[in-house]
């Protein structure tokens, strides 16, 4: 086993993200960690994974790391160059995207995400990116995986602006709003969360090695459901670390974004 290997929390999160992807699925990615997770899954247990970029790219094999979706480095060796109407319309809106990765400024106890602003939406606030394809993935993907830093200011009981809906106020509210899918996992640098099947409130699923339950809970602004038995997140294998370090992100550029 590899429990004694040295690895960063970024690498652990990327490996945990990769585990969410099954062979033959379609995944929509953007920037940073989800890109590493998806390429890692494709090179290990999911060789038939299809990776799509919302602006119109299918299955790229980049050899240089891009600064974002719009960087042609990210499109290299794609199988298809197409459009938003195709990727987000004919694939996502039609219900064919299995997994959408999402990140954000804040996430709440029901998986609602804010990427729009911090502060008081009706008063003083700081403006950020907004939706892009985030709202569309949150609304139409079969499941989403949220990647976020484990800090009390990011894990809130309620977010100040719902850019991308999770389970709204819980229970059946999401279905009633006409949305399909919903958040499946939340991966932070301290733990992995899921959602209670009934109430849809966030539920702790595993804590990362070298982290305590107290450390996890004291760095959140809400109380998640905590099950009696709490496994430890499976650490990366030597081969997964080699792929990330030597082939997928040799210059540690994704790790820094």
């Amino acid at each position, binding site marked *: 086993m590899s429990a004694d290997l040295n690895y960063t929390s970024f690498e652990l999160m990327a490996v945990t993200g990769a585990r969410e992807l099954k062979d033959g699925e379609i995944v929509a990615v953007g920037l940073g960690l989800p890109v590493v997770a998806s390429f890692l899954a494709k090179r290990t247990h999911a060789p038939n994974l299809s990776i799509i*970029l*919302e602006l119109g790219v299918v299955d790229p094999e980049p050899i240089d790391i891009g600064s974002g979706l719009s960087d*042609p480095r990210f499109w290299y060796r794609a199988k298809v160059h197409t459009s938003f109407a195709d990727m987000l319309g004919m694939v996502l809106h039609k219900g064919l995207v299995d997994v959408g990765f999402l990140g954000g400024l804040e996430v709440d106890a029901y998986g609602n995400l804010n990427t729009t602003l911090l502060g008081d939406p009706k008063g003083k606030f700081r403006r950020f990116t907004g939706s892009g394809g985030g709202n569309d993935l949150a609304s139409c993907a079969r499941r989403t995986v949220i990647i976020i830093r484990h800090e009390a200011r990011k894990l809130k009981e309620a977010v100040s602006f719902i850019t991308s809906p999770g389970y709204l106020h819980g229970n059946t509210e999401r279905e009633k709003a*006409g949305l399909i899918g919903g958040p499946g996992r939340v991966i932070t640098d301290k733990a992995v969360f899921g959602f209670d099947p009934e109430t849809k409130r966030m539920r702790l699923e595993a804590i990362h090695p070298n982290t305590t339950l107290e450390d996890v809970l004291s760095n959140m602004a809400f109380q998640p459901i905590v099950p009696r038995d709490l496994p430890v997140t499976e650490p990366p294998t030597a081969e997964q670390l080699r792929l990330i370090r030597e082939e997928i992100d040799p210059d540690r550029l994704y790790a820094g974004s």
Partner: protein
Amino acid sequence: MTKVTTLAEAVASIPSGAHVALSGFATARCAMAFAHELIRQGTNRLTVSQCVAGMEADMLIGAGAVERIVSGGGSRGRSGQHSCICRAIEQGTLITEELSSLSMTFRNLAGALGLPFIPIRSLNGSDILDRLQQITPPVVGRLTDPFTGDEWLVLKPLTPDVAVIQVQVADEEGNAWILGPRWDNEEQAKASKRTIVITERLVSTEAIRRDPDRTVIPGFRVSHVVHLPFSAHPSSVYSIYDFDEAHIDLYAEGSKTPQGFQQYLDKYVYGVKDHWGYLELVGGMQRMKELEADPVLGY
């Protein structure tokens, strides 16, 4: 018939108050030379629409040329936020009709198809929808699917007065190739009343006829063709040149404050006569040569 004109003539065809769809996405195929000339001519009170905001939208908004933006949000990726857009929204000086990437695309698609509205699953349950519902006259509505009885959110189409599309190759009629991913440029051009094509390369119609598979915008939709190399600088044009990271950093730093942005405009927009003057100022032929794309990599 040739539609080739100067950039100044093409820009002069756009009156203040017009709705302009822009082709950029973050730091790719942004209509930068167009934005410079529009600012120099003093055109203002524009409505600008763009699926994911690009650098040209940020510049036009910073320069005060825009009254209203219709977009799905956006940033420059790892190089940061569009500071002018963020500042204008924070200060309440920009009317925003904010959507998502797909809802923007659907509104352009509906416009292109001549549909009265288009149903969508996105936006439901979000605060984005909450805000859209407050806009008058309405841009969103609800209706019942006559076949299933399901309730759907519907969006109003976009029909911009003019689309400004930065392309790799076009002929004098405006038949234009877009290479690489196209985001919603095709839908924008086809939803708009007319299109201005800004092209890196001008080729004969015979060259277009030999490879019509690549043509995304047919000439009959185009009012002006502007042939201007490196006219998306510092953004990238896939297969022709890479983005200029150093100049984007310079813009990013300058645009963080209104004063810094004004200094940028004074030097790179007002301080030059035209696009050729700008290219000289940012490093001339030598710098452009360095940015030239590798034919295999495309960047």
